[in-house]
């Protein structure tokens, strides 16, 4: 009899323990969900507000009893105004030409540099790696003005300047306001935040097995062929990560384009100047809190974000997976 009671009480305590554990994990899951949702709300709130405001008319905006569901839509009006003010199509072309293409060049040229630094030992390699970290640490803004001044009289090795001094003929080209102001640094692997991209590549290349590449050398493939035929095909993950970062940074860049371009502007620049241009074109005032202007402005923001969002939605699945596998932090 006593035995039976013992067994029962034992069972009870074990079940109680299990239940308690289950309860604790349930509480934790709820806690986790609450945290994730509330911080998620902070992320989503400005975006939702932007989208809703861009859809509604000024009367709906002034109606403070309805915040999230507009009482009156003015989609066509808001978006047409923003579209015109931003000169959307030509700005999009400018973004593509200046920013996205130079991002593409950067992705390729940084891969080469990183492969060189990750795979081969050579004199001064430590020094170059230190320089690489320096380029990550020194903010782009520090060297922006001298770069801009140099671009207006581009003189790669001082030869043309010397020629100018001797003969008075100025052959130095002005590459401001042209794509070369963006492409040249990218070609040389020192474009927008190239340091970080090279660093990500290096961490990945270091983790690739060396044996395959060595076998390729033994079989007589040159270093570039090895790189193209063996290293690159197995680095899809890192290329995706780098591409996403480079494209995003270039798409959002208003710093360089603000300095280098003065005639046509990429989208990021148009968004930065949007209040100004809207004010000129539609005579709306921002400091007076003109509700009409807010609708136009938010429509402009949506127009700027949407292409990126669409691309992000397409690649996000692979992007999130690739982050698991790329081992950025080695």
């Amino acid at each position, binding site marked *: 009899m006593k035995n039976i009671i013992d067994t029962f009480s034992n069972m009870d305590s074990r079940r109680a323990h299990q239940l308690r554990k289950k309860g604790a994990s349930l509480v934790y899951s709820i806690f986790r969900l609450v945290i994730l949702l509330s911080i998620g709300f*902070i*992320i989503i709130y400005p975006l939702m507000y932007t989208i809703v405001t861009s859809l509604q008319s000024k009367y709906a905006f002034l109606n403070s009893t309805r915040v999230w569901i507009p009482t009156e839509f003015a989609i066509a009006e808001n978006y047409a105004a923003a579209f015109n003010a931003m000169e959307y199509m030509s700005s999009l072309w400018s973004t593509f030409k200046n920013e996205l293409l130079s991002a593409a060049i950067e992705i390729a040229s940084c891969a080469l540099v990183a492969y060189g*630094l990750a795979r081969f030992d050579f004199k001064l390699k430590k020094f170059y790696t230190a320089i690489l970290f320096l380029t990550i640490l020194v903010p782009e803004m520090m060297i922006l*003005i001298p770069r801009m001044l*140099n671009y207006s009289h581009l003189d790669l090795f001082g030869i043309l300047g010397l020629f100018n001094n001797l003969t008075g003929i100025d052959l130095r080209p002005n590459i401001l306001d042209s794509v070369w102001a963006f492409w040249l640094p990218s070609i*040389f692997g020192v474009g927008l935040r190239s340091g970080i991209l090279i660093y990500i590549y290096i961490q990945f290349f270091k983790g690739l097995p060396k044996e395959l590449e060595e076998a390729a050398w033994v079989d007589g493939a040159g270093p570039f062929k090895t790189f193209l035929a063996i290293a690159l095909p197995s680095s899809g993950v890192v290329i995706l990560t780098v591409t996403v970062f480079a494209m995003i940074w270039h798409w*959002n860049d208003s710093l360089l384009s603000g300095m280098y371009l003065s005639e046509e502007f990429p989208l990021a620049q148009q*968004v930065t100047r949007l209040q100004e241009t809207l004010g000129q074109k539609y005579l709306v005032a921002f400091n007076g809190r003109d509700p009409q202007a807010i609708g136009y402005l938010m429509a402009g923001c949506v127009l700027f974000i949407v292409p990126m969002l669409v691309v992000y939605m397409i690649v996000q699945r692979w992007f999130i997976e690739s982050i698991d596998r790329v081992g950025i*932090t*080695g």
Partner: protein
Amino acid sequence: MKKQKRNRGIVELKSRYGYMFTTHWIIGIVIFFALPLIQSILFSFSKIEIVSGGIDFNLVGIENYKDILLTNANYDTWLTSSITTYLYSLPIIILLSMSLAIILNQKFRGRLFFRALYFLPVIISTGAVINLIFKTTGSDMSDIGVSDAYSANMISVDDIVLLLDIDGEIASFITQTISKIFDLVWSCGIQIVLFLAGLQSVPQSFFEASRVEGATKWEEFWFITFPSLSRVTLLVSIFTMVELITSERTTLIKNVYSMMRAGNYDETSAMMWFYFLICGGMMGIFVFLYTRFLMKRWE
């Protein structure tokens, strides 16, 4: 003897290969990085005039620095406000992104959705558009936004702090932090990505061993996860510091940037260099202390 020679041949070959891949970058570094950097330092010590065919500058020593520190009335304010923001944002961003990454690394339903959501700031927050959005939506609570009308009716953070009867210093810290909550959460994008990548590289066998030994979740976090993340934390800290220093949302950068566009190159160079030297110095101290004391202890 022969083998050694052949080895040297391979070494030489490899070194040549190395240069084949990196020469363009080295040239680029000289032209587009080193030279402008030196020029920028020179600019900060000189007066600049823009003439046709380039610029004219003559060295004037530390005149610019004297000017900005002693005569310029605004610079001190910009500097202090930027540095305070930098100092209190950093630990909050690191802690927040680390905890979010740990949560997002767990297995639960809807994980993919939340990950996609939390990566959203990565694609937007580096851009100019976020300033506009924050200002207009009233998420930038330090500014008087448009949504005043709504927020006036809600209980504000100040009321709560008053109600709870918290001391001045702490209260101001709390109100500041909460009023910047949008800014802080939105700065966590890439940091979460980096921490997640770091968490993937923690060997699972560590956790199995600790489970066998009967460690609690808390001990697991404190003795395995946290130390394994020490290198990532350093990387994330450095990245965050650079981001915070150069963010166009800081007062100093915003003002200096508009001065630059107006064509003032000498004083702005001095302003930037002074600011970056202070921030860089603090960064150096942090990195030194971190590697010297924390990382040593864990390894």
